[in-house]
């Protein structure tokens, strides 16, 4: 499954446990639509040709008597009912009414949208979110106003990247500081508006083998250099060093292609002129949290990197974040 996980013109990669049912529903609906459209289309085109105005041909006044349209309409109605009751409601019911049990196995995260970034608040090993206070908000250092002196907050983690353990229940509580945003992870088939004054939960589970490391591997692709457009690969990095004719490395392994059209195109040109015929690239980071609701000037830049880990690695990341913060604040005190 994962081997095929790459971005293209149909679905994006599907990496959550429930997402398959959503894709299945979308596929079924599209086959149904296609069948109806082709059916109608054949009748339509037949009429256009067969009943065109021409010498000796006359329209017939008597209305068509057949019942076939009735049957088609009823069949459409019945099938729609099936889609609704059989395929849509079960997923939605789970999505809205069956939260994972609270407990050690559930990874809980508070997500707060703001113009134009996502903020993530993890409760840490104690499972309790520390107190927050709007008066403590500092846009640069403490966007959520977490009271770091609070007992429950001592092991909390604040991050602007979203880190998730694979194979575990994820329980996300979503809200916003200012305007309405929408928390969206296309690859997880998750979307939920983030609304100020309301806290709305969503839950899902990342597929067991969908770690960021493995995804990068599976999304590694060879691109013929003649066809490369910088814009299409701007979020990719090289998996090996590429040199120009003089042997100088112009695109280093892991280095991004830059964030600028002119420089990017120039670099690709240099590589082409240096005799390279293809580039092997992978996304710098294959997963993103984006904002699906218009939220102002920089709405389009509102995204967070999403990084998925094996559960043990996730715990390690949490520890590291806690240590970094305490180390940081001690340093601050010394200073």
């Amino acid at each position, binding site marked *: 499954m994962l081997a095929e996980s790459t971005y293209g013109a149909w679905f994006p990669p599907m990496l959550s446990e429930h997402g398959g049912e959503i894709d299945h529903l979308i596929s079924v609906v599209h086959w149904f639509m296609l069948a109806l459209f082709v059916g109608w289309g054949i009748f339509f085109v037949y009429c256009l040709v067969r009943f065109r105005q021409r010498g000796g041909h006359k329209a*017939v006044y008597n209305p068509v008597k057949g019942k076939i349209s009735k049957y088609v309409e009823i069949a459409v109605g019945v099938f729609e009912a099936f889609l609704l009751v059989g395929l849509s409601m079960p997923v939605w019911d789970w*999505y809205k009414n069956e939260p994972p049990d609270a407990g050690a196995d559930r990874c809980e995260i508070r997500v707060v949208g703001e113009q134009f970034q996502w903020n993530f608040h993890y409760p840490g090993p104690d499972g309790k979110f520390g107190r927050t206070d709007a008066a403590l908000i500092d846009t640069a250092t403490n966007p959520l106003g977490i009271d770091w002196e609070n007992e429950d907050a001592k092991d909390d983690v604040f991050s602007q990247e979203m880190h998730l353990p694979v194979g575990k229940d994820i329980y996300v509580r979503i809200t916003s500081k200012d305007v309405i945003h929408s928390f969206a992870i296309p690859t997880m088939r998750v979307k939920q508006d983030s609304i100020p004054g309301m806290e709305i939960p969503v839950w899902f589970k990342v597929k067991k083998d969908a770690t960021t490391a493995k995804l990068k591997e599976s999304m590694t692709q060879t691109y013929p250099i003649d066809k490369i457009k910088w814009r299409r690969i701007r979020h990719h990095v090289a998996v090996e060093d590429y040199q120009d004719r003089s042997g100088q490395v112009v695109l280093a392994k892991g280095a991004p292609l830059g964030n600028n059209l002119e420089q990017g195109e120039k670099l690709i040109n240099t590589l082409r002129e240096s005799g390279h015929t293809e580039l092997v690239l992978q996304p710098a980071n294959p997963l993103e949290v984006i904002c699906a609701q218009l939220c102002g000037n920089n709405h389009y830049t509102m995204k967070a990197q999403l990084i998925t880990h094996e559960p043990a690695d996730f715990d390690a990341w949490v520890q590291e974040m806690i240590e970094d913060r305490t180390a940081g604040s001690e340093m601050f005190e010394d200073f």
Partner: protein
Amino acid sequence: MSAEHHHEHDLPFWRKYVFSVDHKVIGVQYTVTGLLFLFFGFCLMMIMRWQLAYPLEAIPVIGTWLSQSMVDADGVLIGDGYNALGAMHGTIMVFLGVVPLAVGGFGNFVLPLQVGAPDMAFPKLNMASYWVYLVGGIVMLIGFFVPGGAANSGWTSYTPLANIATTGQTVWLFGMVLLITSSLLGSVNFIVTTVQLRAKGLSFFRLPFFVWAQFVTSFLLLLAFPPLEAAGVLQLMDRLADTSFFMPTGLVVSGELQESIYSGGGSPLLWQHLFWFLAHPEVYVLILPAMGILGEVIACNTRKPLWGYKSLVYSAIFLGFMSFIVWAHHMFMTGMGTTLSTFFQATTMIISVPSVIILTCFIISLWNASIRYNTPMLFALAFLPMFAIGGLTGLPLGLTASDIHLHDTYYVIGHFHYVVAPGTIFALFAGVYHWFPKVTGRKMSEFMGKLHFWPSFVFINAVFMPMFFVGMAGVLRRQFDQTEQLQGAVVHGLTIMSSWGAWGLGLAQIPFIINFFWSIRKGEKVGDNPWEATTLEWAAPSPPPHGNFETVPVVHCGPYEYSVPEKKTDYCPQNVVMEA
């Protein structure tokens, strides 16, 4: 009545052609203004398509002419400039383009003629409706010139974003209040005219489908707009008087606690409910008149009665009614519970049934027909598969589970544009070509008409078909630069194709513009009933004089008596007792 009408030629120019109370002059005023706004809204879109295809590259030629609220010094669009173009494109297309053209233009000109009336029931109200609309339109345009530029919170103006937006939003709200008022004045008029002024013998079930469509549309406007007008005033209060109707407690904007400004306690979602309570019926306001035009053009050019006339009428009424109880399907992602979402999913599935019936009736009408392929008919026929695509793609959006993935993506943009662009807009073109001879006494050129139709048909699909794939890949709507996101960068090629389609579509309108003006003066002169149609407007002279009919028409039969066996001609006008 007739005595005063026949003094019309004594009126000074400005009373006759500018501040006229004649429904036909008002209809033409609405049509021309509506077409201009459609063109303007389309131009805004062509600029946006540049930024989408070539993000952050200077807009060619006109880039540096645009105001500093939209572009930087090099003529590169900025984020809020893009958002303003998007919000104004949506607003202008819906409220200043399509509705005025479909209802104010076609409704005004054709409906009184089709019911055999000398004018609208309230001619002065009718005139007021046009002028309020025009002022509303001008106010909307003024938005582009205030500090911060035009409204940039989407045509939906979701709060709190719209509450804290620049001055343009205030202008937008004033504009909306005027436009809504105009629509209310119009809709009352249509309803009373249809009920009171029908010619003798013209019972409800002898009304052309066009009249039915306008009649139902008027009820939608009358009942759905007032809540939005109220909501608009509330948002104005939030913006100007710092009330908190839509502002929750504890808002922090750019690090600033808003408590000192707003008391809080309001609900951002309240706005969405009020907005969509209007805006879903509005969708049917965009589509029903188009279906009405289609009924006329198809019956006339198949030379046979519409199949299932009564089903069409009942479906239109049912559609109108249902359209009031589906609004929250636009809000599935706001955290709605299962009970409510089940209700709205079910009503959404149910409302698709009358649409299917209407489409089916039109298609079955082609059976055993003798199809005349003139320009209006080509546009009308193209409507059918295009509207089918638009309607069908609404299904996965109406089911909550699939909507999780598709909500707010380009799939939605593709879906509703198939309904309103190659759907409604094509029907409106069909209407222009069909009724042009009635308005001017001349036909538009068939050759130029076909030169307009075929490229438009190809290009419009090139614009919108790729959007389904882009959306399916997860690319969101209202994105200034979609390549900022991984999946957006990957499918960027499809977006470039869409943009070229849009510019091609723009070029394809040149034959129409030329044809339109050329035909007013030079078009082939035709008689009163060039299409050999049956409905009453063709019984009046072309162009109809003030007061419309030379003799008061009396109706003897249904609207679409084409190819009646044993009759002399293949059409029986409603006002003529046809001998065998």
